[in-house]
């Protein structure tokens, strides 16, 4: 079997989409069987920063052998990424993690994204065959709404500042209409995911959530990236599962928020 490894990707594009939000297109050659919800590890050049930065796959182009990634400048590592120029190379590993399940029977699907949790939902929306409604929440400026419009029946935006869409959160969008989808997929901040879980459970709608945790190995070996997963009927039957390997996507009813 050929062994996987950290590889060099060529940067085809690396540009600001908005304040502190960048998109990067990586030419990786072979994208593998990349599934929406999976992520790649990007590595810093600066030797003071050892750990990978996990970035979700926003779009895959298998033929061109490229990934589109959207990232937010949060700390020193993503700051370093903004300095990379076209044609420069970056170390990457992936695709990693489990990804969303692509249920072909679903007819009505609700996608709920918040902030930099929005990007992985785009590739997902492109692959799902049912009717998709997309609810997106941001602080100020939205991203990717144009891209979603091309593949979804409906795209609604909420911003906490009120600069775009309604003033509020995706939960406010959820209140505005009577949504009764066959399934919900969601990715975003923990608070939002918890609210989505509760909303879905009340209505008995299956939901998948993509979780975020700080990582070290990214491949399931070090156990730093765990999240609490309920593994039985008793709430005490929980175990830590690995976001990088068992996730990042989990069934909503199993995820235990504290």
């Amino acid at each position, binding site marked *: *079997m050929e*062994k*996987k*490894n*950290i590889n060099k990707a060529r940067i085809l594009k690396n540009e600001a989409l908005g304040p502190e939000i960048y998109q990067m297109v990586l030419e990786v050659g072979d994208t593998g069987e990349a599934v929406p919800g999976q992520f790649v590890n990007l*590595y810093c050049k600066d*030797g*003071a*920063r*050892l*750990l*990978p930065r996990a970035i979700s796959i926003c779009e895959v182009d298998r033929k061109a052998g490229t990934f589109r990634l959207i990232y937010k400048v949060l700390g020193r590592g993503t700051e370093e990424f903004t300095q990379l120029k076209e044609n420069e190379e970056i170390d990457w*590993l992936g695709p990693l993690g489990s990804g969303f399940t692509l249920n072909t029977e679903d007819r009505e699907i609700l996608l709920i994204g918040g902030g930099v949790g929005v990007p992985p939902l785009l590739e997902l929306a492109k692959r799902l065959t049912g009717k998709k409604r997309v609810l997106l929440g941001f602080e100020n400026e939205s991203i990717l709404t144009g891209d979603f419009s091309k593949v979804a029946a409906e795209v609604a935006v909420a911003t906490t500042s009120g600069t775009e869409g309604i003033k509020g959160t995706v939960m406010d969008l959820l209140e505005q209409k009577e949504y009764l989808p066959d399934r919900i997929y969601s990715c975003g901040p923990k608070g939002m995911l918890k609210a989505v879980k509760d909303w879905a459970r009340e209505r008995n709608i299956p939901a998948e959530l993509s979780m975020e*945790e*700080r*990582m*070290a*190995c*990214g*491949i*399931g*070996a*070090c*156990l*730093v*990236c*765990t*999240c609490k997963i309920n593994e039985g009927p008793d709430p005490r039957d929980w*175990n*830590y599962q690995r976001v990088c*390997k068992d996730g990042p996507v989990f069934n909503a009813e199993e995820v235990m928020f*504290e």
Partner: protein
Amino acid sequence: MSSREKRPKLAVKLAGVELKNPVMPASGTFGSGKEYEAYLDLEKLGMIVTKGVADRPWKGNPTPRVAETHGGMLNSVGLQNPGIEHFLREDLPFLQSRNTKTMVNIAGRSIEEYVRVVTALQRQPVDFLELNISCPNIKEGGVAFGTDADMAYQVTKKVKAAATQPLIVKLSPNVTDIGAVARACEAGGADGISLINTLLGMKIDIKTRRPLLANTFGGLSGPAIKPVALRMVYQAAKEVKIPIIGIGGISTWEDALEFILAGAAAVQVGTANFRNPRVMLQIIEGLENYLRTENIDGIEELIGAGHELQEGIQC
């Protein structure tokens, strides 16, 4: 006879057991090998070292469990592990099916817990036991066995009595006198020592104004700690005759060589695997090339060869 160059010998003997080469993963950074098999041929490693195993499943600490630091990282996994039964059922058969030596890292919070794990491993197809004495001893008010020479002696002695495999005791660096702990382990019957485990550290998140790790403190690892690790290996090598496994920040073959020159018979690679899952193979290759260019027949010649005869006192 062929004129081909003689291949330098990377094999080393550790407590009577021969390893293909002196390079192995550090416990807790490599699972039990399964996850890394997609990245490298496990059989090329000198040995496989498992994640710490306790007598019962441990859930570990809440997240965040990791923080990046300048040239290193902090972890507070808290020895999450599914317990010895699960290990014997799920992991050991996998390890056994690979042609490689195996060292099981043992976790515990009391001497009895350690002894239970080691007893369960009696006569199992395991080549070495590595006793992690950096855990706080619950019975002794949370003081780690590894930070007290007397306690290190006691735990080594009792665990050794129950062990059917060679016992390596893994030392904590959070001590005033590493030599004293090393001597205590040797006196207690250890067949070798490995060092260092992580340095206790912390990070504060200035946004929340609270410790970043849910556990407040974590263990510092990675290249940042290499100078401290190397110094401790060098000091321990002066104090004991049993073999030493050097650990701490090793990321290149040059790093590995430094530890060997300081007195290590073998080395473990931890954090560096996260940046490059194949780094151990590159270290093995680098060492082999070095021996070839320097015309050295076998790496064992270099163990401890870096010692000064006369040493100053640092101030």
